[in-house]
């Protein structure tokens, strides 16, 4: 993949330049300013120069990640970019080779595992299951980090678990065992467990990967609402439209490195999408929701090789132009 154009890391320094070139309207959230104002306070999650490799393959290469308290940070990037590895490093699941992670200002290495679980909950990408546990029993497990060794769940824990199941709309299958649930249902049950854990920081690894469109919206809306109430969330999200719509900040990873980061409008440019994902895209404002929208037009490889000039123009395309461009692009490939 060395044929890539120069890396876009340290996106902030490039951002103004891109903005002037970019004709489309800017993101309305205005988060970058807010985020900058908070810089001096302690971040909820602060990873610095994280590196991790397995069998000489560098999965993370000096990755920085900062999530302010009460912020929803989206991790985007192609398969194998290191999103899952980054989430696993922050959540103490794997021990990274170099770098440091601070949770609410405390060094992750120095925190006892139990205490980490009180601060932070992880919703795994593939929800595992064990024969026989019911959905409710699994959600109750979220209470373990808060209980003493000789304690069992009390009425209060039941109430917390029930509330988490109501929020994720999983109460209708509370008494069903995990192996009888579909992948999407199980994924929501695991989110319910993470909520029952009452963490300060919620890490989600592609929380919507198995969900239907309705539940994708509902779950991300739920996370958004929780964040607005003060939770900090970091989520790996594949769907760029969803990421743009729900996250305060996006961090774009590729090949184990941060390529760019910032407000969704700054990160998700047609140019960046083409360089990092290899997809020719149009970025515009969706009239119905007012959110940033990304239309994926075609794999960019052919276009990039044959007509490098075209990349410059796609960056400033509007949605209507994109439709026209689509036929142009396909005929070009033929």
């Amino acid at each position, binding site marked *: 993949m060395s044929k890539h154009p120069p890396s876009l890391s340290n996106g902030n320094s490039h951002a103004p330049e891109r903005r002037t070139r970019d004709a489309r309207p800017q993101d309305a959230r205005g988060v970058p300013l807010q985020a900058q104002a908070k810089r001096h306070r302690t971040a909820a999650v602060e990873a610095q120069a994280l590196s991790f490799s397995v069998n000489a393959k560098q999965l993370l290469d000096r990755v920085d990640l900062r999530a302010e308290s009460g912020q929803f940070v989206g991790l985007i990037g192609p398969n194998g970019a290191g999103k899952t590895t980054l989430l*696993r490093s922050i*959540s*103490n*699941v794997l021990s990274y080779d170099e770098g440091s992670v601070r949770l609410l200002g405390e060094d992750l290495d120095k925190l*006892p*595992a*139990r*205490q*980490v*679980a*009180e601060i*932070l*909950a*992880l919703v*795994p990408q593939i929800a*595992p*299951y*064990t*024969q*026989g*546990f*019911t959905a409710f*029993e699994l959600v109750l*497990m979220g209470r*373990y*980090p808060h*209980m003493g*060794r000789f304690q*069992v*769940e009390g009425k209060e824990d*039941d109430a917390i678990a029930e509330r988490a199941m109501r929020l994720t709309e999983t109460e209708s299958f509370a*008494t*069903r*065992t995990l*192996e*009888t649930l579909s992948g999407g249902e199980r994924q929501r049950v695991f989110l319910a467990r993470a909520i029952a*854990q009452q963490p300060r920081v919620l890490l989600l690894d592609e929380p919507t990967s198995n969900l239907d469109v309705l539940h994708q919206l509902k779950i991300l809306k739920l996370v958004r609402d929780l964040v607005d109430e003060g939770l900090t969330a970091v989520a790996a999200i594949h769907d760029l439209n969803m990421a743009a719509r729900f996250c305060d900040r996006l961090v774009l990873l590729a090949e184990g490195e941060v390529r760019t980061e910032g407000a969704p409008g700054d990160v998700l440019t047609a140019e960046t999408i083409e360089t990092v994902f290899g997809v020719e895209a149009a970025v515009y404002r969706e009239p119905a929701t007012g959110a940033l929208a990304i239309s994926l037009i075609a794999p960019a490889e052919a276009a990039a090789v044959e007509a490098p000039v075209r990349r410059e123009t796609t960056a400033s395309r509007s949605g209507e132009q994109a439709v026209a461009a689509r036929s142009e692009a396909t005929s070009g490939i033929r």
Partner: protein
Amino acid sequence: MLYTSVSGLRGFRQMRVSARLTIGAAILLALVLVVALVSLSLGPVDIPTSHVAWIILSSIGFDVPEFARTEQLVIDQIRLPRIVVGASVGMALGVAGATMQGLFRNPMADPGIIGVSAGGALGAVIAIATGTAALFFLALPVFAFVGAMAAAFLVYGVAAVGGRFSMATLLLAGVAINAFLGAIVSAIIIVLPDNEALREILFWLAGGLDSRSWEHVRIATPLIVASTVLLLLMSRDLNLLMLGDDEARSMGVRVGATRITLLAAAALATGAAVAVSGTIAFVGLVIPHILRLVLGPDNRVLIPLSALAGAVFVILADTVARTIIEPAELRVGILTAFVGAPFFILLLIKNKRQVYSL
């Protein structure tokens, strides 16, 4: 796989963990006492249960009506230690089975899976074949225990080689070392010239509780009780481990340390049981399995109740074994396999139908 659809929970499954635990424990404790009492009264010398009760009460300082000295001797020196050893063994096999099934995330795992039974057998066979067993009384259980622990260490060592421990390797190493130790035992049996020793070996391999004394209680029971308490304390962590290492880790479990402690405690309990009773089949497989069907997979319930149910099962089986063909005795290990295996197959067939009807 095995226990599948629980559509609309029934019975114990609807209850909270604490209720499941207390009610289950109350029932099983009562059962332990009843079965023990009945077992104490049965045998070549018939002792009425009222006398049994008096004898026990008098030994803890109560004023009771007269009873025969011989009756007291039979109970104190023969039947009671045998029952206590049986209860300890049942307890050990029950908790170790539940733990192994949880650790391997597989209801087919049994306490012998990491080589403990085969190692114990080899230790015992060596003690008998070399004549050490005849030299002093505790040689046989000590050899068996050492063999069991050595085998467990070997299996664990193979699985942990290169620093990356894996449960799959542990399972495979267990299978391989079980086969290897079994081959050595067979070889010793074949080349052994002494018929008396041969008979003794076969007798031991079948597993039994005959002529167990308070000495046996003293060497096995403290180890078994300590391991059981340890497993009980870690049962919540085992619940999380059943969801996978990553899950457990993200929920605050120190996976490596927890797993090795669980394995060690289960191996210790099983090793102690094997040392005093030989290999008693099927208890560790069947007991946790049945309880899981009734009570659900929560190890905080499963582990303590497997201990009690295991005790009930072994005392009961031993009572039948020693009374069914009086004056001769059947070995308890033969009986548990004889009853356990068909029952287990029945269970498999029943649950298979459930899977297909889904």
